């Protein structure tokens, strides 16, 4: 199927995981549309300054083709010494942010983009300076420039409520303008990018290949391990590095432990939002066992620091394994008791049923991932569709619910939690003996690699272009919240304002992930709001907002 669509293009790579094709700009829209019709959804896009290599800029569009279990990467290059590329946003809505990102960071001009506005850089950033170009030094601190004036005309019947960036409901600095009519939010404007830390530039300038996993881990404090795994997988993919079996198992165990801590954290927050604080306290108590396990294995509660290119850094010896199993049993017993109780409570059920509905068709169009997709009846899971680490050897089920509402998202996570417990046990039992790390590798120059993992919130995609001399040429991480956020306005429509916090929380938003380069806008999307860290959302639920 995919091959037929790509007929006539130059195929740069074609194996059982990835297809890379160079597409001439004129055919870009036609092929993108063809891929979408063939059942692929838009995953992410990366702009690259390839001038040191071939005097051009390039844009890589990644499509995820679940039916064929492969990723398709389209490479578009600008003509020599030019900056213009055709935009594929008119045919694929999901590409909008990626293209605006490339406009901001590299100065590529996308012909035909519906709203070519600044997205990522701060307002006081001078015009015409593009930080991801190779001639921009990563540590150059520019003096602030005068921001452009540009304000929308206020509408007379609607009240404007500014919210943030420091507000009791927000724990990450984000700014909103909510447009309120009576009790209902009719529109909202979002200004994010407060957490843009210049990570991608840092990785390709100051850091060496083996330092980046630690940077990737700090994209997000909750799901950092999946990011570092995805980065390592991308480099291993580019260089064809063999990862020892035991290392794959240990990675799997850590990823599942991370999923457990993230899900339990989410359940606690959801309980709180629904006005059930004892549930919150109980679940966070049960979560402490998981944090203890992480601390026991890796030496830190959150930033595991276990991944490195070619394997892992720490072993799980027999003594630790027994202790982990002990703690795991305690945690499973505790969380099962508490969660069973929670699920059975009629009051909670009523607040979640038929709230925040995301229809399956719409979800597919936006390209939602992870539990949000699975709760809308979309059967997708990277662990099963594109097996990585040791997931191919484990026995697990992917829960899919057809309710399309918040309750389904709750139940998907509920099932996943216990799947994770069983997966960790299986992995611990079947862990083969052997080496932890393969250090015998050579990094090729200018080679593209793709790493994909299933984070607690959905699919994480990392694209890496390697460079000799122990460096990366370009690294582009895409977090799962990036794909899920556009679904929020659809979920919010037609709901009470009192349900807004739980609807927003139901996608388990992780904003620092998304903001590492930052995203989200809401111009016509009638978005939203962007609550941030759980605590913030939790307080909205308290009615303190």
């Amino acid at each position, binding site marked *: 199927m995919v091959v037929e669509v790509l007929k006539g293009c130059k195929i740069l790579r074609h194996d059982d995981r990835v297809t890379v094709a160079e597409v001439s700009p004129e055919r870009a829209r036609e092929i993108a549309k063809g891929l979408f019709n063939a059942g692929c959804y838009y995953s992410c896009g990366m702009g690259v300054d390839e001038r040191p290599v071939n005097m051009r800029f390039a844009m890589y569009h990644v499509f995820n083709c679940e039916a064929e279990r492969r990723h398709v990467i389209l490479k578009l290059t600008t003509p020599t010494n030019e900056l213009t590329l055709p935009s594929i946003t008119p045919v694929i809505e999901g590409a909008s942010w990626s293209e605006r990102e490339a406009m901001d960071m590299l100065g590529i001009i996308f012909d035909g983009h519906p709203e070519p506005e600044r997205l990522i*850089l*701060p*307002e*006081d*950033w001078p015009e015409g300076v593009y*930080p991801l170009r190779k001639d*921009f030094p*990563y*540590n*150059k*601190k*520019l003096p602030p420039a005068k921001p452009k004036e540009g304000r929308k005309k206020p509408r007379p019947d609607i009240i404007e409520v500014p919210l943030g*960036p*420091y*507000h*009791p409901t927000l*724990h*990450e*600095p984000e700014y909103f303008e909510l447009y309120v009519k009576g009790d209902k939010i009719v529109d909202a404007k979002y200004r994010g*990018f*407060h*957490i*843009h*830390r*210049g*990570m991608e*530039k*840092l990785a390709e300038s*100051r850091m060496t290949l083996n330092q980046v996993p*630690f*940077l990737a881990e*700090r*994209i*997000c*404090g*909750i799901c*950092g391990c999946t990011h570092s795994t995805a980065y390592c997988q991308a480099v291993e993919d580019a260089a064809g590095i063999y990862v020892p079996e035991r290392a794959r198992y240990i990675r799997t165990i850590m990823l599942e432990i991370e999923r457990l801590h993230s899900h339990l*954290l989410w359940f606690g927050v959801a309980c709180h939002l629904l006005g059930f604080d004892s549930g919150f*306290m109980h679940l*966070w*108590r049960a*979560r*402490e066992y998981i944090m203890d396990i992480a601390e026991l294995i890796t030496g*830190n*509660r*959150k*930033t595991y620091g276990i991944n490195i290119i070619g394997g892992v850094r720490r072993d799980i010896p027999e003594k630790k394994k027994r202790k982990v199993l002990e703690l795991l049993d305690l945690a499973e017993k505790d969380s099962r008791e508490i969660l069973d109780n929670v699920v059975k409570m009629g009051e909670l059920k009523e607040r979640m049923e038929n709230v925040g509905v995301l229809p399956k068709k719409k979800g597919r169009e936006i390209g939602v991932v992870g539990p949000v997709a699975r709760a809308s009846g979309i059967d997708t899971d990277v662990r099963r569709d594109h097996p990585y680490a040791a997931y191919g050897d484990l026995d697990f089920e992917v829960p899919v619910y057809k309710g399309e509402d918040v309750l389904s998202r709750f139940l998907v996570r509920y099932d996943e939690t216990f799947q994770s417990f069983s997966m960790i046990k299986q992995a611990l039992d079947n862990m083969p003996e052997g080496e932890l790390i393969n250090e015998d590798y050579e990094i090729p120059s200018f080679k593209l690699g793709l790493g994909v993992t299933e984070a607690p919130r959905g699919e994480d995609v990392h694209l890496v272009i390697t460079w000799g001399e122990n460096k990366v040429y370009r690294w582009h991480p895409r977090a799962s919240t990036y794909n899920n956020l556009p679904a929020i306005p659809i979920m919010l429509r037609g709901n009470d304002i009192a349900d807004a916090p739980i609807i927003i929380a139901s996608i388990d938003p*992780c*904003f*620092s992930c998304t903001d590492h380069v930052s995203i989200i806008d809401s111009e016509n999307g009638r978005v939203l709001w962007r609550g941030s*860290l*759980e*605590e913030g959302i939790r*307080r909205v639920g308290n009615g*303190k907002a």
Partner: protein
Amino acid sequence: MIKRSLWVFHLNSGSCNGCDIEVLNMFAPRNDVERLGIKLVGSPRHADAIAFTGPITRECLPKVIDALTAVPDPKVVLAIGACACGGGIWYDTYSVIGGIKELYKILKEEYNIEPPATVFIPGCPPKPEAIIYGVALARGMLQKKQFAQVYVEPEESLEAEKSRLEALVREAKGTRHFLPKIAVRRV
């Protein structure tokens, strides 16, 4: 610094959430800092202390300064995590100010504001217990344990090293010399 209950305002200046969750974790059953009179408040005007996380991104800077100056004196800043203490892993990138010390520099130079009392809590992220320790330090409940360490190579060991190195090099003098490869290869 402050002897009574601390009310804390949480100020995130662009951190990765790791520290923020550990701050939240302090209020969960395991650590439960409300027993020490510590409470999260929603407005900087109500706060005695600021739980400061993140390396201060360029976008956040004016807003952070506003929030910081809104807290009434006397105040304590708890700089939590590697980012707040020293800028963290991204301390020198184009969009990061680089930690609370740099912020104080800007405050002093541009606004003529003296830096408030600060407790630095390193860690990435620090354990909840480490944050509690920092809070206890701010309340004067404990003594600090962390001190600067300076080691200067002492003279006597230097002498021994000198003679050892000389002996090793002298050994080389008596050995057979090999020609460099390029000269050995005959065309």
